[in-house]
């Protein structure tokens, strides 16, 4: 038995090293193929789904578009200020992400209100300040109601719509959507789960390394 222990130890170490946090992240959405010419030869290129262009306004009345997120990775989520259910839990988790990446110019956080009539720019400003956001890296966006809902559904695979049967009057998914520098969705995480948000932050590190 004593002879076996070193062997067991070595195989255990081998087993451990085969587990690694480093993995490639999936790319969400439908993909198309396109024939392109490379060095005189026809090759098949894959075109991935990307988040559509957008124009929203942040809590400081600045216009935020696809140009704002250019070259950065970002997280999108959906909330409304008077939400009594999952939003405060999501915001608690988003604070964790914000604290970790504060000052990293390659990371943005975009929280979209789904109740633009109630959540005015002034209210969003107050909301942002109270959560400890500097307003530049973690922004609170509003805009045309339909544009926000369309963006949730088509850009981020998320649900956001009025529902009078829900507390607060809206139904929305609690997802944190991770988008890469090429505006491709690379992960969707449950923003109410501490474990999933920890996983999200690991994946953000992987994405940031991808761009080094």
């Amino acid at each position, binding site marked *: 038995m004593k002879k076996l222990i070193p062997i067991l130890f070595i195989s255990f170490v081998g087993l451990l090293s085969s587990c690694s946090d480093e993995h490639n992240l999936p790319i969400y959405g439908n993909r198309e193929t396109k024939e392109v010419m490379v060095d005189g030869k026809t090759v098949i290129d894959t075109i991935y789904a990307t988040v559509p262009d957008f124009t929203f306004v942040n809590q400081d009345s600045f216009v935020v578009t696809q140009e704002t997120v250019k070259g950065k990775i970002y997280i999108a989520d959906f909330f409304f*200020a*008077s939400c*009594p*259910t*999952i939003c*405060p*839990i999501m*915001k*608690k988790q988003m*604070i964790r992400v914000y604290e970790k990446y504060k000052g990293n110019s390659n990371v943005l956080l975009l929280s979209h209100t789904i109740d633009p009539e109630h959540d005015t720019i002034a209210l969003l400003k*107050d*909301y942002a*300040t*109270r*959560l*400890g956001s500097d307003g530049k890296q973690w922004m609170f966006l509003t805009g045309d109601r339909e544009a926000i809902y369309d963006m949730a559904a088509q850009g981020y695979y998320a649900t956001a719509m009025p529902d009078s049967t829900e*507390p*607060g009057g809206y139904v929305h998914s609690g997802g944190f959507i991770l988008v890469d520098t090429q505006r491709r969705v690379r992960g969707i995480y449950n923003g109410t789960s501490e474990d999933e948000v920890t996983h999200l932050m690991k994946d953000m590190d992987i994405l940031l390394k991808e761009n080094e």
Partner: protein
Amino acid sequence: MNKVLFLFLLVLLGSCSDSELIGMKQISHGAQIYKAQCANCHQDDGSGLAQLIPPLKHSDYLKNHSNELPCLIQNGLKGKITVNGSDYQLAMPAVNGLTKDELADVCLYVLQKFPETPIQLSEAELHSQVDTCFKAK
């Protein structure tokens, strides 16, 4: 050994009066309601959320307004309040659909759990406050 333990437990239980046992049951029921209705915003530990949602833990507002707690939960709260020196102004929604007993139990739990020293309300006092809120609705 098991018999000794059983006897010991029996003696321990017997040392609680009936009213204490009922109180413990109500508080544990209140804890379940707190978890379902309040903890999303105020958190399990009553710490609140940043400067957005006020804490209940060691809150001077709770201490000074303990008599209003049943109505506050039942009707919600609008307007600015100051808690432990910080201003808060996000409206608190009314908690709908609680029975009188549930409202009383969650108040018992909150007043027991979060103040620096637990606030004891008599059964009669609490129920009269609960009745007032239900009448006002």
